[in-house]
């Protein structure tokens, strides 16, 4: 009951945000701007959805922004030489591989997730700089532009991709054995193990999902910008964590809902979009975002008691 209240609370927050921005700017609540918001949200949503899996399993993934950049760079670099498809596969493969590596380090080497992924964050960023020599990779095939900039009818393709990723992830979490095991592992890893669950496999899987979705984000971003930027995704891990926490997921694992994360991701991008429209300087935007996150989590916690 309280759980439901808590999560509707965040929905009310989202509605409140939309209403206030609509009142303050008449350009805000228009179909074209809402589509822009949704497209912007997709970038954060992929990462936040991956992060939800990780946090539900009582972990954390600080490396998403760096994996995003490295996969984007690999995709772009390979693409320029060997074509769009091979490039995309290479990028996604790298993200998946680094995610699995994260999982192995956490599950098998028993290094705390915070440290393991912090190390990956630095390493993958470094590899990106090495690979790109610190310069953007440009001259990408035009077909690749569809991923981040294309439309199906009047709907931007990233939105469709976001909906797809959300639905698949939702099904995985709620309707499959795997999803149950993720919740169980995060809720009490020892009890999960004693229930016959291969918890190492679950942990490796959630980091793999996070790595894969980071790579997908990297490619969408690369496509959208028509170039791979070595500094892409800096600080994105914090936005992703913020979206998950705003969505009501317990940072200690075991509890939380995917749709909450989606609402959280929307709140983050609506804040960006609305504050831009009101011409709030990007410096102040950071301050506002920080305060909003703090208030939202404080409200959620008070509902819990």
């Amino acid at each position, binding site marked *: 009951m309280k759980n439901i209240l808590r999560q509707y609370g965040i929905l009310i927050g989202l509605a409140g945000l939309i209403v206030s921005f609509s009142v303050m700017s008449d350009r805000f609540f228009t179909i074209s701007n809402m589509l822009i918001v949704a497209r912007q949200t997709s970038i954060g949503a992929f990462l936040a959805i991956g992060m939800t899996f990780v946090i539900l399993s009582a972990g954390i993934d600080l490396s998403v922004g760096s994996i995003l950049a490295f996969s984007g760079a690999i995709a772009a670099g390979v693409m320029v030489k060997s074509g769009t498809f091979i490039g995309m596969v290479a990028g996604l493969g790298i993200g998946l591989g680094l995610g699995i590596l994260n999982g192995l380090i956490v599950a098998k080497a028993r290094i705390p997730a915070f440290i393991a992924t912090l190390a990956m964050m630095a390493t993958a960023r470094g590899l990106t700089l090495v690979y790109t020599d610190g310069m953007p990779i440009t001259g990408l095939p035009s077909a690749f532009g569809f991923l981040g900039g294309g439309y199906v009818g009047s709907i931007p393709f990233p939105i469709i991709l976001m909906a797809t990723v959300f639905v698949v992830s939702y099904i995985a979490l709620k309707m499959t054995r795997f999803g149950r095991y993720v919740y169980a592992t995060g809720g009490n890893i020892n*009890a999960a193990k004693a229930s*016959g669950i291969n918890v190492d496999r679950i942990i490796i899987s959630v980091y793999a999902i996070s790595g894969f979705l980071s790579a997908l984000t990297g490619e969408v971003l690369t496509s959208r910008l028509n170039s791979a930027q070595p500094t892409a995704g800096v600080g994105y891990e914090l936005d992703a964590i913020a979206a998950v926490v705003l969505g009501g997921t317990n940072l200690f694992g075991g509890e939380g809902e995917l749709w909450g994360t989606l609402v959280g991701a929307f709140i983050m991008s609506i804040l960006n979009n609305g504050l831009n429209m009101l011409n709030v300087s990007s410096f102040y935007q950071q301050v506002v975002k920080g305060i909003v996150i703090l208030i939202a989590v404080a409200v959620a916690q008070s509902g819990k008691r």
Partner: protein
Amino acid sequence: MEDLALEFIDVSKSFPGVEALKKVNISIQKGTIHAIVGENGAGKSTLMKIAVGELKKDSGTMKIFGKEVNLNSASDGHRYGISLIHQEFSLVPSMSIAENIFLGREPTKGILKFIDKEKILKETEVVMDTLKMSFLPANRKVRDLTVAQRQIVEIAKALSMNSRIIIMDEPTAALTLDETERLFKTIIDLKEQGVTVIFISHRIEEIFEIADNVSVLRDGKSIMTKPIRDTNRDEIVKGMVGRSIELVFPKRDTKREMSSTVLEVRNLTKERQFYEISFKLKRGEILGIAGLVGAGRSEVAMSIFGLNPPDAGEILIDGKTVRINSPFEAIKHGIALLPEDRRELGLIIVRDILENMTLSNLYWDIAKGFFINKNKELKAAEDMKKELSIKASSLKQRVEFLSGGNQQKVVVGKWLMTNPKILIMDEPTRGIDVGAKSEIYNIVRELSNKGISIIFISSELSEVIGVSDRILVMSEGRVVAELSPEGTTEEDILKLAVRKKVS
């Protein structure tokens, strides 16, 4: 008017889903040793936490030395001179005795407010001296102390705060007999110094040794308060359980067939835990394993279940040697383990009854093809809830808020859903109330009648005798005896269980 140290008048307290205390009335006289007894879950700890301000009462009145008080925190309690010594101590292991005693209220000196270390050491020595413990240097680190010594440090801490009422929550639970005797001497010394000592226990024998008065709690209600000389063991037990204890165990059907051997363990050994454990378990048999805490019983259970790989020895199921390296493989062989620590190994307490119950079954049945068959799951869980009469408003209730007995039934249900041939129950009745206990005994009996073999590990000897078809006694990692429950007394088992220690 008698001189009262502490008085509860109609004190009530509820937690989500549980009424922990219902109009409790207890008076504790100044300068006495007052025992508070009751089964696990009777509300003893809750009442004591209210007494010192760690919890707030919902209603009722509490008086300390005749003055009505409303405490909001433990430091409020300290101000009124009342301290609680927990089962799990609140000492910082990396700090010294003296630093622990003055933690959070360190005396300072000079304008820079440096901690006055000499004063701390000196005052610690004074207070340790009144406890006749001056042989412990005040600067010794707490991590280098024994459990009994840590307890004394807790008492010293309470005394140095000028506590006039000291509450001890099951202080003897982790002590050896010698240490218990020494602790009792300390308690009597405290009494002579005019301190009121409240002593929580469920070992009745102890109470007669030390207490002046005794109060009995049952299901959150105060049943009686009497001078110890005006009561006896039977009256106290009856007060605690609400009925005479012989009724609890279901009748054993001695005629039933127990022919084929389901499980055999041969020379199972794990260094420093257990040695050369061998036994056979027949179909439908209830094999009790008795012994003291630390005898290695749980370790053997965990080994059979794949959680604690043994160094040597063999496990045979239906006559065939098997290797069990994980709980998954154990389940595959039809073994289930109801773990000793329910909350740590048995339950995902943040999830609901449904998810907990079906967790171990998903792979084998309900979610065989990866997707969860929700209808099947719901029906299976609903049936199990009914069968075990689990009291909860719905399957969607978080197990965190269930009573100990209902939590245990959820774990039992979880394992029954894996259709085990062998169910190992490690202290299945620990921390659950008497009513739920007898339900568990009935479940055990019914399961064995259905042909499930059960290993029943318990430290409550009466229970082992009452439930088992055959009893193994373990001591210091070895099986020291095999007994029939017929004609075996608790004393018989106890003698065997401690035998090694004496020699």
